[in-house]
């Protein structure tokens, strides 16, 4: 199908402008992230995921490590006890959720990538750490959503998942590209 093009060139009434090279945009649905570099997440989501069962409270949360892909089995949200209330008010009808535990060796910016639109909080000592930024690519599940946090080194952190109806989620934690050593 011939693409329909519209120019919004100021002060011009004729169609001008740069023709986009066809290769500029991949058509796999994963080209919608606002960041240039999601290569680490894309590569991780192409690997075999390690199965874990997400905890139903902080005490049962399994430990995950950065740079590995996990497939976490989740539980009905109403059965969970979170370390801190989800920082976003959302209806929990039919929602699943769970808790995962992790640490990072170096303080800095990290990205949490998911294959579904769960709401996530990273909780330290009972308090949710505000996210720095987030982005997604709606047609993509590898990953679907990425949230950036500035994380402290060497502390027990909890990743809390809430809000979506899927009973499992693939998740990976990576250092943000600019923060890599």
């Amino acid at each position, binding site marked *: *199908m011939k*693409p*329909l*093009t*519209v*120019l*919004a*060139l*100021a*002060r*011009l*009434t*004729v*169609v001008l*402008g*740069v023709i*986009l090279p066809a290769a*500029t*945009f991949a*058509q796999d649905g994963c*080209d*919608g992230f*606002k*960041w*240039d570099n999601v290569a680490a997440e894309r590569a991780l989501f192409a690997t075999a995921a390690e199965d874990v069962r997400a905890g139903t409270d902080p005490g049962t949360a399994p430990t995950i490590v950065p740079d590995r892909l996990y497939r976490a089995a989740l539980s*009905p949200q109403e059965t969970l006890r979170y370390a801190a209330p989800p*920082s*976003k*008010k*959302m*209806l929990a*009808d*039919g929602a699943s959720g769970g808790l995962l535990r992790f640490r990072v060796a170096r303080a800095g910016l990290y990205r949490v990538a998911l294959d579904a*639109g769960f709401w996530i909080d990273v909780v330290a000592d009972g308090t949710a750490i*505000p996210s*720095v*930024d987030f*982005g*997604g*690519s*709606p*047609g993509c599940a590898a990953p679907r959503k990425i949230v950036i946090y500035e994380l402290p080194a060497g502390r027990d952190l909890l990743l809390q998942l809430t*809000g*979506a*109806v899927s009973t499992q989620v693939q998740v990976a934690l990576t250092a943000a590209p600019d923060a890599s050593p």
Partner: protein
Amino acid sequence: MHRPRRLRDLLGACLAGALSVSAAAADPATVPFTDRRDPPSYRVLTAEERDRYELGQTVFNTSWVPAGTPRAGRRDGLGPMFNAASCDACHNNGARGQGPAQSGPAPVGLVIQLGAGDAADPVYGHVLNTSAIEGHAPEGTVFVAYTERRGRYPDGREWRLREPRYELRALRLGTIGKHSLIKPRLAPALFGAGLLEAVPDAAIIALAERPQNGVRGQVSRRDGLIGRFGWQADSVSLDEQTARALSREMGLTSRGAERDDCGGADAACQRAPDGGQPEVSDDFFDAMLAFQRWLAVPRTDVDEATEADGAALFARTGCAACHRPDLPVTGAGPVRRIAAYTDLLLHDLGPPLADRGADGRPVPTLWRTAPLWGLGHAVSSGRPLALLHDGRARSIEEAVLWHDGAAAPARQRFGRLSHAERNRLLDWVALR
């Protein structure tokens, strides 16, 4: 149960009053946003009002799921075609949508409206839906490509703008209607929406009848009502604006829109199962309206000298002729006047910002003066700015420079300011 929150509201209001250092800070429409994820109301709410506000915020944040999803309860009915699964996906915490950072697929907060005037595109409906539930296909995809354009101020300093070009790809039902315009629209901030609704019709009409600096705005009228919401003031109420967004961008029916925004020939869309009639129940819909009606405007403190200097420059350049710093409101509790920096009137800003037809030609387009309040919240968010109706402007300066048509004289006066004056004016606007 509600006392802590109400107490917090009161303490917050008192503390804010004590710490205020500017005329803007005395504006009761504005409130400090201590937690961006939990935007406050502009006035203290009763317990019943607080319940509704919080339910509205909850529904606003909730991701909807397809009809028939097991255990989905009250939140099924998404699609079958849609752009976003939640209101919050585009109006994150009530703020404006994130625009494109660079050339590439349009982000979720930037939709393409189709049609001419109030009429929908005959093939795709009012909005091109770029997502679909399982078993259905999106109507198409949207790519935006930017080219850079450069120029110079009279003092020789260079400015740069990025010019967007939109491509609609993989159009599932073929080309759009031949009379349709392609109208990119970024999700606007919702802060103070209820206060804009509280501006009396008579005040808007009076502004249209008393032009300033030779700039005459036009009242948006439909069926005897005055439009004031949306980039072109084509919605006459928050009810209408909300129902339209639910229907056209999320595929959710409500009491204000009984059908999804399916294209005329899209039988699969029209046959898709629903998640109830309506899919957004009346109590949810009312709560979402309450959330928007009472949502405050983020306060940004500014010292008095900066305020006075910036306001004078704003007036001197003629920006204030349309971005009016003072409007009356009624029925809004303690708020009597607002500094929204809009006249809620329509103006032709010339071909550079105009919508275009499928042939690429600009079509004269009337824009509602965009309210500037809340800009400080966007500037301080740490995220890239994306201003104007399609997020093309990466800074307030770029947004000013795109103004043409009725606003050309004001833009030219801005350009003739000294470099220092321009920066002071831009800094002041960034504190609205």
